[in-house]
């Protein structure tokens, strides 16, 4: 549980630090340290509650950049993000862009994801590396199985040969990207930053 707290807090502090990149270094350090002092050692639920009270790192950063009180005390603590259209296009490109325009479509989707504040950094990393990692793992397994087949006497027709593996790998990559695209869309539906 404590590890989970650390992860929650660490993720939030990283996001906050990133969001404050335009703010004067001393103020940025004070803000991050001030938040760290308060969140350190809290139970996960309490840490999440305090993070929710603090609000979106992007909002804190915009306030710090201006150095002024909020235009309205009644304004939402969560700033508007990119529009729904941006989110849908970005996730669609990640999911299907590679099918429509091989490689480039998928890359365009990833660029949009990385430029957006809609997702956590770890979500962006998962979206970028996840599908390739899954395919690499499966191909490695197939390779190992096919080698054992060459050595062994029994040939299992269910295990594809290497040539088939490339095609299967391609299909698997498309499937993985589809799943990642839907996952990103689901993650983007949150009304506040994730805390777990």
């Amino acid at each position, binding site marked *: 549980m404590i590890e989970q707290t650390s992860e929650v807090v660490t993720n939030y502090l990283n996001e906050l630090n990133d969001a404050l990149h335009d703010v004067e270094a001393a103020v940025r350090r004070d*803000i991050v340290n001030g938040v760290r*002092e308060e969140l350190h050692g809290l139970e996960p639920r309490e840490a999440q509650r305090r993070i929710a009270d603090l609000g979106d790192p992007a909002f804190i950063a915009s306030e*710090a950049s*201006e150095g002024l009180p909020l235009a309205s005390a009644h304004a939402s603590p969560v700033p508007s993000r990119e529009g729904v259209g941006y989110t849908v296009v970005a996730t669609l490109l990640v999911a299907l862009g590679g099918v429509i325009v091989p490689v480039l479509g998928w890359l365009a989707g990833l660029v949009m994801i990385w430029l957006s504040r809609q997702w956590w950094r770890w979500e962006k990393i998962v979206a970028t590396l996840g599908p390739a990692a899954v395919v690499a793992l499966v191909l490695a397994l197939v390779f190992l199985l096919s080698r054992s087949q060459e050595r062994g006497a029994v040939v299992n027709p269910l295990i594809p040969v290497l040539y088939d593996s490339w095609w299967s790998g391609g299909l698997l990559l498309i499937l993985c990207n589809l799943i990642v695209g839907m996952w990103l869309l689901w993650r983007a539906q949150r009304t506040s930053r994730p805390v777990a």
Partner: protein
Amino acid sequence: MLNMIVNDVGAQLRKGVVEFCVLGCLERDPMYGWQLSENLIGEGMIASIGTLYPVLARLREKGLVSSFDEPSERGPARRYYRLTQNGTAQLSTFRKQWKPLAAKVAAIVGEDSAND
């Protein structure tokens, strides 16, 4: 559009007095950033902790506030802020001027007949 103008008036007023509100909070007791932030957010003076720290930085730069680290039970040392002598003097000057100024402004702008 009208709401935006009204909100802008509120923002300008808060902008003018938020530094003195921080001084007022710190006059009672030294406080750490989160404490100050919760107080001022609760009073509707600032919107987030992001507003507070630039104000604290300005006050420190002017020599009205100083900071010190105090060990915390939970983990890392906390940074507390307290009023300097100059800060106390500045707050006192503000208090002397605020009431007459607020009274004059009230007399000039009058009361809102729309709410009568």
